[in-house]
Structures are given as structure tokens and as C-alpha cells.
């Protein structure tokens, strides 16, 4: 098995080499990683639909006494800090992946925990923002503009929450000794999902919050 000429089909004999390379597939990429990237590509269509819907309805404030659109009530300074927190969580995530690729378990746990914490801060900020809007009298069914806003940002929030669950699960697996250097790619795949959630927020922050 070690004398395979095609480098993409080569399998490390010792099993100790980098776990993210040398898979027995025609592409040289593991099925799990390929599946995650394909899933993320399909998610572009999902979020594209939600963002487009928001753009179409963002000025439709309804016919009742409360006529403000989401843009009238944004606290831009607050959301900017939330965005910064989520952006920095991408750094801590990539440092977690880097740590496990070097076999540094303590660093992996530290960075995974930090990433989950930063994600939780972002979600707490989103819950606070939603609560503020609800206190003003603007709920999901108030008007097309508010429905589109809550659907888009709420859907993203659910993605972040799922990411936090994945991070904490990976942390638990690491603490019980079930994540080692050979499983580094599993951490990388969780990281891919987390970075995608971050890049989607990069778009939402600009299109929804910054551009009027």
C-alpha cells in the first residue's frame, strides 16, 4: 500500500502523518471534508435567498401605527462590537485547528473553549438586540421588513448556536481523550463550519446594518 505511485492515493503506513492528507479517494480529499465544503456551497444559496428577501422588503414597514423599519432602530456601535467578537472567534478557531495539527491538546482545548465563549457572547448580543426590538413593539409578524430581518438574523443565530454545540462537543471529545492528532481533520471540519458562519455575518453586517 505504501508503493502507490499516485500521491493522491498514498496512505501513510504509520498512520502518524498529517491526518488531513493522503486519503484513499480519487481527489485526495476525505469524503467528510468534501461533504462539508459541498454543504457550505449549498448554504450560500440558502443565505442568498434570505438576504435577497430582506433587501426586497427592508422598507416595507407595514400599515399600523408603528412605522419604523429595522434600520431606524439599529444600534450600530453595539452590533459593530458583536461583529468584532465573531470575527475574532474565527482567529481562535483557526488557532485551535493549528494546535491539534501540532498535537498540542491543551492549546486545542483553550482555543476551542475561547471560540465557544466568543460565539456565546455574540448570541447573547443578538438575543439582547431582539429583546430591545420586541420592547419597541416590533416582532416577527409586525411587517414584511421585520419578518425578513428576524428570519435572516435569526437563521444566522441558529447557525452560530449549532456551531457552539459542535465546538463544545469537540471540546468534550478532547477532554475524554478521543481527539488526537490523527483526528485533526474533524476539528478542521468543525472549523470550516464556524468560519462560514463568520463570513456570512461579514455579508449580513454590511448589507443589513451598514448600507441604508
Amino acid at each position: 500500500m505504501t508503493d502507490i505511485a499516485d500521491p493522491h492515493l498514498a496512505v501513510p503506513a504509520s498512520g502518524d502523518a498529517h491526518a488531513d492528507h493522503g486519503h484513499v479517494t480519487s481527489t485526495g480529499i476525505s469524503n467528510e471534508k468534501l461533504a462539508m465544503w459541498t454543504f457550505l456551497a449549498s448554504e450560500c444559496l440558502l443565505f442568498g435567498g434570505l438576504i435577497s428577501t430582506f433587501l426586497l422588503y427592508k422598507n416595507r414597514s407595514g400599515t399600523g401605527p408603528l412605522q419604523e423599519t429595522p434600520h431606524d432602530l439599529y444600534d450600530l456601535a453595539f452590533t459593530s462590537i458583536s461583529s468584532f467578537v465573531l470575527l475574532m472567534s474565527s482567529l481562535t478557531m483557526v488557532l485551535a485547528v493549528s494546535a491539534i495539527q501540532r498535537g498540542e491538546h491543551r492549546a486545542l482545548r483553550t482555543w476551542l473553549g475561547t471560540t465557544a465563549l466568543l460565539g456565546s457572547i455574540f448570541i447573547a448580543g443578538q438575543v439582547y438586540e431582539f429583546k430591545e426590538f420586541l420592547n419597541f413593539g416590533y416582532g416577527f409578524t409586525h411587517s414584511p421588513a421585520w419578518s425578513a430581518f428576524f428570519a435572516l438574523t435569526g437563521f444566522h443565530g441558529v447557525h452560530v448556536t449549532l456551531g457552539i454545540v459542535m465546538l463544545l462537543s469537540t471540546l468534550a471529545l478532547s477532554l475524554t481523550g478521543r481527539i488526537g492528532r490523527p483526528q485533526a481533520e474533524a476539528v478542521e471540519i468543525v472549523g470550516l463550519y464556524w468560519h462560514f458562519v463568520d463570513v456570512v455575518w461579514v455579508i449580513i453586517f454590511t448589507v443589513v446594518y451598514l448600507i441604508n
Partner: protein
Amino acid sequence: MSADANSVALSHPTDHADGHAHPTDKLFVKVAVILAAVTAVEVAWSYLPWSDWGDGKALYFLEVGGLLAMMGFKFFVVASVFMHLKFDSKVLTRIFYAGLVLAVAVYLAVLATFEFFTGGGSTLPN
């Protein structure tokens, strides 16, 4: 990994025998600082008194175009460096950007159909 080897790994992308370049932690931190700086510029850009400077189309395109350009830059950098597309198999880049391009094309068509670029979506109910 020896101390010397580790210090090298933290300063330069390393090439492994498998042909893949592995980025270093130092590169990730540098990229994060750049992303944070661009985010700060984005927010400051949105606070500029654009309406005081006139209401021409050119000014509007500069305001919105600048924000979209910074957004695109951040997206590309996170995908390339943090998601390792720059260092990984090109197949993954093609898969991801195929989905992205398809999504952008489909929804630009949808927005155009609903007169977003011309009539502000006047065909939609309030």
C-alpha cells in the same frame, strides 16, 4: 519539534512532503489584525456624512461600493486563509466558489425581476 524548528514554523508558511503549504499562527494573527482594521474602516465609512456632501449618484456609488468592496475583501481573506482554501486542494475552491457564484447570479436575477435596482421593489405588497 525543536525550539528552532518551532520558531521557523511560526514565521513562515511551511511546505510539507505532501506538497501542501501549512500557514503559521503568526500569519493567522496578522490576518485577524487586518480584518479588524478593515471592519473599523467599514464602520467609520458608514458614519461619514455622505448626505452633507451631496446627493449625486457618484457619491452614493462610492459609499455603497466602498462598503461592498471591504465586505468582499473580508470574505475572500477569511475563505482563503482561515478556511485554508489558499493552501488546500483547488477542487475545494472550485466547489465553494461555484456555489457562491451560482447564488449571487440567481439572486441578482431575482432582485432584478422584482425591480430592486430600478423601482425599489414597487411590485411587492406592504
